[in-house]
């Protein structure tokens, strides 16, 4: 079963798929991933983003996503576009979205999980969220 992890970086939503095999190894599925950009924060831009995301989710039969939580304060706090993206993801009817704290993911990763390598560096944190979910669910 594929587990999806999501990360919001600036105006981009990165969705990455991972699985866990019977031996407990985690795998990255590069052909099942996407990066969707919120090109404009106006009404049309939000609708276009929603339509693209809905299309990807439908085409890949995604029912659950672990979304890496965004900081609401401090030097690395998320921008307004990110809040819109997070809301759109959570509003998807057919998808159960779980917001996972980066601290929780880091703590899990430190326990010795062997993470697969993503294709692109920007997919790293979304992949961690996907692997966290896959590991938690037991594969």
């Amino acid at each position, binding site marked *: 079963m594929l587990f999806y992890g999501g990360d919001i970086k600036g105006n981009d939503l990165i969705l990455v798929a991972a699985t866990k095999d019977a031996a407990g190894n985690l795998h990255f599925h590069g052909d099942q991933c996407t990066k*969707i*950009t919120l090109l404009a924060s106006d009404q049309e831009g939000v609708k*276009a983003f929603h339509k*693209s995301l809905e*299309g990807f989710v*439908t085409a890949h*039969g995604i029912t659950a996503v672990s979304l890496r939580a965004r900081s609401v304060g401090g030097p690395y706090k998320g921008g307004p576009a990110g809040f819109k993206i997070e809301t759109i993801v959570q509003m998807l009817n057919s998808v159960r979205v779980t917001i996972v704290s980066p601290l929780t993911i880091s703590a899990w990763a430190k326990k010795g999980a062997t993470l697969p390598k993503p294709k692109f560096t920007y997919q790293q944190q979304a992949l961690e969220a996907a692997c966290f979910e896959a590991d938690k669910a037991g594969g």
Partner: protein
Amino acid sequence: MTFEIPADWPADVREKISTLSESIEFNSTSTNGQNGYVAFGRNRITNADVAVKFYYWGGESEFHLEPKTLTSLSSASPYILKVWDAGYAGDEWAYYVTPLCKGGDLEGLIAAGFCGTKRAIEICSDVLHGLCSLHQRRFIHRDLKPGNVYLDGKKGVIGDFGSIAALPEGKDTIPASKHSLLYRPPESCASDEYGFEGDIYQVGILLYQLLGGRLPYDENEWLSDAQKSHAASLSCPEDRIYIDDCIKQIIAKGKLLDMSSLPPVVDERMRRIIRKATNKDPSKRFKSASDFLAKLSEAKLKVRDWLPQSKMLLMRDRTSYRVSGDGPFTVEKRRTGGWKTDHSLSELTQLNEIIRIIEDRPQR
């Protein structure tokens, strides 16, 4: 008004219509369907207008979609026409009952010419959204064309499931549908193969037509003079086979679409999208319906929304423009208040030059 089942319809279909008449008051039939029989009526209890389509499946039982599966598609996507009922009519025919879309199909919209850039994108996005649902379940439509996409209000919905088929696990292609030659992808003309990429190709043609691209339905328009006279010398059905072969050659070469027939308001971005979706090589098309959809959603934000409006072209934005005439052209603009003639463009005689200058002007 009394309804009579056409005498030339197959006996199994006629018998099923008689049975269905207990719950549906049939009132007319359609002659448009090329790959089946369509009857219209009204449900005697709910008063809902319905269409009943009969389709032949006897020859393709391996890939045939069971009526049960067809009915389950109803809930798959709001962009797929609801199937209220489905069943068999004898051993070789099946049928399904759908609501009647008052907006009709896209044939009428396309016959009127260019329908507006964003409107075309919206309809194709709806179709692609429906396709995402079908493809995720490994179904391929195989017959996406203007006559099989209906307008439900402003929304485009995929209809006509007569050619829909399940792609077995481990297989990338199945035999193509034999219907609607003009919409058959190049690979299906060359080797009778059809996969997910075939549906993407057909949506590309749909986009081309909605944007005003020319695709003549009269088969003679595809033939050279020599081919026409050769066809005329043949007897039926050899002439039919010969004409189809000539058209198949054009499709296989990837020369079906004439991009120069698109109106000048269709910008290079949209032309690139059409070219990619309808590429002769299936591997060079969009990887999936969702990729195509994402590209269209992105394009919709960037293109200028040109609309046809009573013999003129209108572009609505912060500063709106309208262009009328057949050359010389009259260009008017409006920011606030009424329309004012834009004298800076009155010297130009080429419409595409006027459009390019307007599109290059900053809006925000």
